[in-house]
């Protein structure tokens, strides 16, 4: 009864959320039954109900390799670097934008930093290639100019743990800094004025006002990103590396491994198994991170 009363009271608000709810159910919840496909030898003509059940067989190939450890390590480590270093860099960038104030140069700056986000990796990978190409690359040109021997970058595993984060930040940092920039804009100017009266310089203002105020949004973003820590940016790891075999030890991730293994033919069961595996790990990670945050600083936890 109380529930119905509550519904009646909020009927307009509920009605407003209806379209989104319908969308969510249709596009995010209905397809979840498809996850059962991970336990099937799925055949399109037999359909979902006619296909044979095979237990955990579809998951085998993920672990049936000497590289199971390598692909898991790569996926996790790169993502952690992307998330943690990414947050730091994005906050710094946002603060710089804020300090520069509202000048035309700053606007141009922001657009330039944001721009790579809208380039797909298909195109972006050629940007990287123009830098790293053996005979026409900018980087080898510089090395040769100073009398060094050119390096075949796509055969140099040692370089890629650095190249990949640089490429990732080149593309994504502008976009993530926008979120922080807008939160900075949301901080009441009273704080800064008060600080100025007390004689705080710009660094102290940043140190004692901006950064603490950004803390909770940084934590929220961190929790959200934890959900994707077991998925890798396929374009970055497949296209930018030109799928070079010599680099697999440092560039192979779960997604590229699955793609390389299953490009011939399409095994829906095995792909679904990978997706399910990644989702479950992601779910666990999000809940764990949130639990830790709740312990450490309860106000910032998401749920």
């Amino acid at each position, binding site marked *: 009864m109380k529930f119905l009363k509550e519904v009646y009271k909020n009927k307009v608000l509920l*009605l407003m959320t209806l379209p989104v709810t319908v969308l969510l159910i249709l596009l995010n919840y209905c397809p979840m039954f498809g996850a059962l496909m991970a336990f099937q030898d799925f055949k*399109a*003509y037999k359909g979902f109900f006619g296909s044979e059940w095979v237990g955990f067989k579809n998951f085998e190939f993920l672990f049936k390799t*000497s590289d199971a450890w390598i692909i898991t390590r790569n996926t996790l480590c790169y993502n952690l670097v992307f998330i943690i270093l990414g947050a730091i860099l994005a906050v710094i960038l946002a603060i710089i934008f804020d300090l520069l104030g509202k000048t035309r140069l700053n606007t141009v700056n922001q657009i330039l930093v944001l721009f790579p986000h809208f380039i797909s990796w298909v195109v972006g990978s050629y940007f990287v290639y123009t830098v790293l190409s053996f*005979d026409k690359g900018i980087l080898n040109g510089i090395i040769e100019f100073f009398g060094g021997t050119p390096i075949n970058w796509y055969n140099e595993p040692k370089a890629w743990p650095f190249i990949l984060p640089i490429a990732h930040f080149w593309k994504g940092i502008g976009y993530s800094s926008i979120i922080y920039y807008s939160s900075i804009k949301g901080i009441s100017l009273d704080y800064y004025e008060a600080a100025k009266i007390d004689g705080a310089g710009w660094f102290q203002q940043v140190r004692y006002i901006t950064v603490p105020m950004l803390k909770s949004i940084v934590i929220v973003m961190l929790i959200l990103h934890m959900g994707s820590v077991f998925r890798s940016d396929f374009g970055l790891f497949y296209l930018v590396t030109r799928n070079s075999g010599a680099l697999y030890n440092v560039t*192979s991730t779960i997604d590229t491994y*699955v793609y390389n293994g*299953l490009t011939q033919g399409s095994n829906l069961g095995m792909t679904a198994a990978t997706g399910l595996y990644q989702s479950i790990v992601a779910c666990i990670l999000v809940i764990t991170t949130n639990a830790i945050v709740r312990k450490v600083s309860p106000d910032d936890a998401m749920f």
Partner: protein
Amino acid sequence: MKKKMVKLISLALALVLCLAVFSGCEKKTSDGEYYEIVWYNLGDTTKDHELVNEKINEYLKEKIGATVKMINFGYADYEEKMKLIMNSGEEFDLCRVVNFAHNVDGGAYLPLNDLLESHGQGILEVLPEYAWDVAKYDGEIYAAPSNKDWGTQYVIGCKKSLVEKYNFDFSNVKSLADMEPFLEIIKKNEPTYYPTDLRGNDYIKKLLPFEHINNSVLGAFDLHGDYSKVVNWIETDVAKDFFDMMHRWYQKGYLRPDADTATTSNDIKFFMNCMELIPYQEEQLNAEKPEDELRVFINIEEPIITTAYIQASMQAISRTSKNPEKTMEFLNLLYTDEYLHNLYVYGIEGQHYFLEDDGITIRYPDGVKSVTENDYRGEAYTQGNRYLLKLSPGSPADLWDAYAKFNEESFKSPMLGFTFDISNLSSEIAAMNNVYKQYMPGLTTGVLDPATALPEAIEKFKIAGSEKVFEELQRQYDEWKKK
């Protein structure tokens, strides 16, 4: 008032959403009483595609009382698109085959034995026994191979201007290894040229005397040896010598430094590359080329007819087809009806092409230099009977005879028609594919040192399950052999 508006708007939004979902399920109806055959084929969608499609429909309505909807996908995405279409169980009738064994096993195609007997006699008559063998899976026919040149010959192509400049004599060249002295001269005297354009695609391995078995990752037969025993080709001595040689060549600079990852050769000048040829293609490749791009070709293996090559151009009827009989009738026409097949490939006579005086060669309209500039074009080899077609401009008059002779004389692989069923080995094959992509481009181009990389690769293949795959492969082959 305001509240009412909000209510109305949200209600409207919700409705629109629901409608959008349902309209996706609405069934499209076809043209009145005629059944519409939906046909996915490989090729480009040119400007006059619809026009020719209509013309074909006019003819088909009269001939078999059906229409066809021709949908073409380009080379780059045909396979991807078909995967989606077949996996979603979409209704369609006819398509070019990709990944034959995998899709037959997945149940995408209809068995055709009875249909061919009842509605496809024309196809049965035209194709030889060994072509049908290739289209069989477990003894049942699942597709119709297009009738065309089936043999293929691997050759080395060299730049003519350089061959003449240094007076090269290739009469003793029997394999890739024999090219070494020539490459050395080019390397020494022509600093702007790379001696070869060998890259880390799967092409190089075709120059070795093996016939590779589809789907098996590494399984092959020794072309000159025992065809009853499956070998892991990378563990043979031939392969080992080959990898060593490539590594030596790479270090000497006969290959481009990024040979293992380079995807195109448009950006370099090179002396030698490898390709596959069919009769008269030599002339066609050199026709209308500037002096600088002419090439000399050296045969290194006898022409061979393999399963993979025939399977690359077959048409199959979908299991989701609502009218397989009509579809088969249409397919039958492509093998027997000269007018229809020419219409499909060359377009409308008098608009997209004109007949020369000899009655069999065509020419394009004025101002159209090659077929790629024409307002319509269909692929000539993916469907039907190629021998029914008129000849494209510049072709020798006896082209079809030459093809037929070529097919007859080509070495017919003893495993024609054997398809490796990997349905129980998917995890092993997936893991092996990864090892393959990690090591093979590097080994075949010599970028990796075989002394360390080869044992490493073999070991990794074993962990991925290569031994199990080979056992199963040999078992299936023996069983197939017995039949």
